């Protein structure tokens, strides 16, 4: 079979399918979205499997994957790095209970924050949960990881975290596919002692997890993703993790300049690190993300005469993505001549699409709030966050999924008035509903705008989990009929919308306004609509 051009996300997805995957669950988030998009395109092709589903949030995705694993099937959940914060509770506790069918937790980190609010490094989560982590350095490895990770997961009964980073997730390279395995079935677990985490059971399971660490470390020493290449000038030793190894090869034109330990499986291989360090006076750590190993390697190698270089010592930047240029500089390689940057280009920040319904909502809200200089607008994660930028400047906060409603409520308790929350339909389904319930129970004095564009717009138009049912959900949570309103965010309705919002802002207690108009991009993609090249 000829090699195929695949992104890291696509290769991981195909690798999982070819390793006998039965089910994939996910909430979309850049740069992880394409894993599940890819599986959706191949869903049901192996005797009705695999199943692929978008879920309400990352926690429900991971719990569904755990349920499928419990039933004996190979399963996975995929998310962006901050999604694992949402799913952290099941993630840390499934490490204690263990799994039945192989379970992969695919997490795509976003160093340099191309589409995220932080650059947290998911290797810390694997370490925290005491579970193994695999990190590919190219799409071929991303394809190969699921097969061995599912087997390891079933052998040790642990979930495996697969860590991707933006460039790996979205970069395409050639992949040689292997022979596909059919979906496997170990049958459901009946092990209540493991799966009922009452303290008496959990203590035993936790002891088992801790005892497994020696086995994981032994696995790491001989793992094919961890390779020590002894060649080159031993005055410097290099440890290169994940995609950073590809930057090292690029910077060195494919040569091994110094003894190099490539790491793609954690916990880190202590013995291999010690073997490398024994030959060198200086160690250079190349890691995409946090200085995870750099901060530990000193403890693994208690040698005072060893100089450790990396992101903590200024040899590489502390924040942001690595690149072959940065690695070349850290190696002291002469840079190629390059032109200075041009002074002509101006910044071109992302903006709402012309005619976007969110723009009309922002304009109407700003007009309605013009009489209230003390008003604050608490917003959330989505395309509409761009309403914080000029020309709208309509939003005051955006922290994490769902924090709009809950922060508005807390600020209102502290006396902020009006306290307005602005969030999208998908964000509301993800983690806004529970906050609304708090507001209802406490009669919090907040005005909540739900921007219903009937899609998860920013990640490419996945269906929203609350599609078509926002009004019923609000009523069910206890919003009174007289405090539940619907507007159409369109220029022709501006005056009317402003008037209604002014009236609602004067009403005490929680109110919800649903602004309903379909996303222009989703409308364009609908069958029958014209499509650009």
């Amino acid at each position: 079979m000829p090699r195929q051009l695949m992104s890291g996300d696509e290769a991981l997805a195909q690798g999982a399918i070819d390793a006998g995957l039965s089910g994939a669950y996910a909430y979309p988030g850049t740069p992880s979205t394409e894993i599940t998009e890819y599986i959706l395109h191949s869903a049901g092709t192996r005797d009705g499997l695999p199943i692929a589903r978008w879920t309400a949030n990352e926690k429900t995705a991971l719990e569904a994957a755990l349920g499928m694993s419990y039933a004996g099937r190979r399963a996975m959940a995929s998310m962006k790095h901050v999604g694992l914060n949402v799913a952290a509770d099941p993630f840390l506790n499934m490490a204690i209970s263990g799994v039945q069918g192989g379970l992969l937790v695919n997490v795509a980190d976003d160093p340099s924050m191309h589409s995220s609010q932080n650059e947290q490094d998911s290797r810390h989560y694997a370490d925290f949960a005491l579970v193994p982590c695999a990190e590919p350095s190219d799409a071929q490895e991303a394809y190969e990881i699921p097969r061995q990770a599912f087997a390891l997961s079933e052998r040790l009964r642990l979930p495996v975290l697969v860590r991707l980073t933006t460039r790996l997730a979205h970069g395409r390279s050639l992949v040689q596919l292997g022979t596909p395995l059919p979906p496997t079935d170990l049958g459901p677990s009946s092990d209540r002692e493991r799966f009922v985490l009452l303290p008496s059971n959990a203590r035993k399971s936790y002891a088992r997890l801790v005892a497994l660490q020696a086995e994981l470390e032994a696995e790491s020493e001989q793992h094919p993703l961890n390779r020590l290449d002894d060649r080159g000038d031993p005055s410097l030793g290099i440890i290169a993790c994940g995609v950073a190894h590809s930057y090292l090869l690029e910077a060195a034109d494919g040569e091994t300049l110094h003894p190099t330990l490539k790491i793609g499986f954690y916990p880190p291989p202590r013995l291999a690190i010690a073997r490398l360090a024994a030959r060198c006076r200086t160690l250079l750590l190349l890691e995409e993300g946090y200085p995870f190993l750099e901060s530990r390697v000193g403890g693994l190698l208690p040698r005072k005469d060893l100089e450790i270089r990396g992101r903590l010592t200024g040899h590489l930047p502390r924040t942001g993505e690595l690149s072959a240029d940065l690695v070349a500089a850290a190696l002291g390689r002469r840079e190629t001549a390059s032109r200075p940057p041009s002074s002509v280009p101006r910044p071109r920040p992302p903006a709402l699409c012309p005619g976007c319904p969110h723009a009309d909502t922002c304009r109407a809200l700003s007009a309605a709030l013009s009489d209230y200089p003390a008003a604050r607008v608490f917003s959330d994660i989505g395309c509409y966050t761009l309403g914080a930028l000029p020309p709208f400047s309509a939003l005051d906060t955006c922290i994490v999924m769902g924090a709009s409603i809950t922060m508005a409520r807390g600020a209102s308790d502290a006396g902020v008035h009006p306290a307005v929350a602005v969030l999208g339909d998908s964000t509301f389904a993800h983690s806004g509903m529970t906050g609304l319930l708090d507001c209802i129970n406490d009669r919090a004095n907040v005005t909540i705008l739900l921007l219903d564009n009937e899609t998860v717009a920013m990640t490419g138009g996945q269906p929203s989990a609350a599609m078509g049912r926002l009004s019923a959900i609000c009523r069910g949570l206890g919003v009174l009929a007289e405090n539940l309103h619907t507007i159409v965010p369109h220029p022709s309705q501006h005056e009317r919308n402003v008037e209604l919002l002014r009236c609602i802002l004067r009403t005490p207690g929680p109110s919800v306004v649903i602004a309903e108009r379909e996303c222009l991009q989703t409308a364009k993609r609908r069958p029958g609509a014209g499509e650009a090249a």
Partner: protein
Amino acid sequence: MKRDVVLAAVGGQGLLTISAVMAEAARLLGLHVRQSEVHGMAQRGGVVQGTVRFADRPIFSDLVRSGQADLILALEPMEALRYLPLLAPDGFLLTSSVPLRNLPDYPPIAEVLAAVREIPRHVVLDADAAARAVNAPRSANVVMLGAGAAVLGLAEDALAEALERAFQRKPGAADANLRAFRAGLTAAREALAREPEAS
């Protein structure tokens, strides 16, 4: 043989489509290929950048190093100038001349094009006019892909086949894109022949 291409555009102009087609063409030719792109917030009228690298030997990274791009292929002239530090001393700057002014302080177009022309090897095309002329008004991006093929000397047949594969489910769009591709190829070849310093 090794070619490093940096693609520059504004979200929505169709950069991802032509990057994928160029990379697929290189794969069909049996070359080593790497391609990268950044998605996400960038889709919404902001800056988008991609790279395509192909060679007859292994390539280790998706990203192009400073001063090593053989070609900057831009769908918008101000975006063409954003990545000059990546361009090799003898590299080509190929851009559409049509500005996309979705920002309040877009510089005067004469200033933008003058800066483009300061690059010794440059080709500037009115991609929109070329696309309209072959009745493919939505395919300005593919016009520039054709022009890029002329500059890179990338085999025309492989690119045409990659284009057909990309649009196999939309026969109408496939035909329009093939016309746009050939229009760009011809226009760039003419421009290269006209300006000896630009070839």
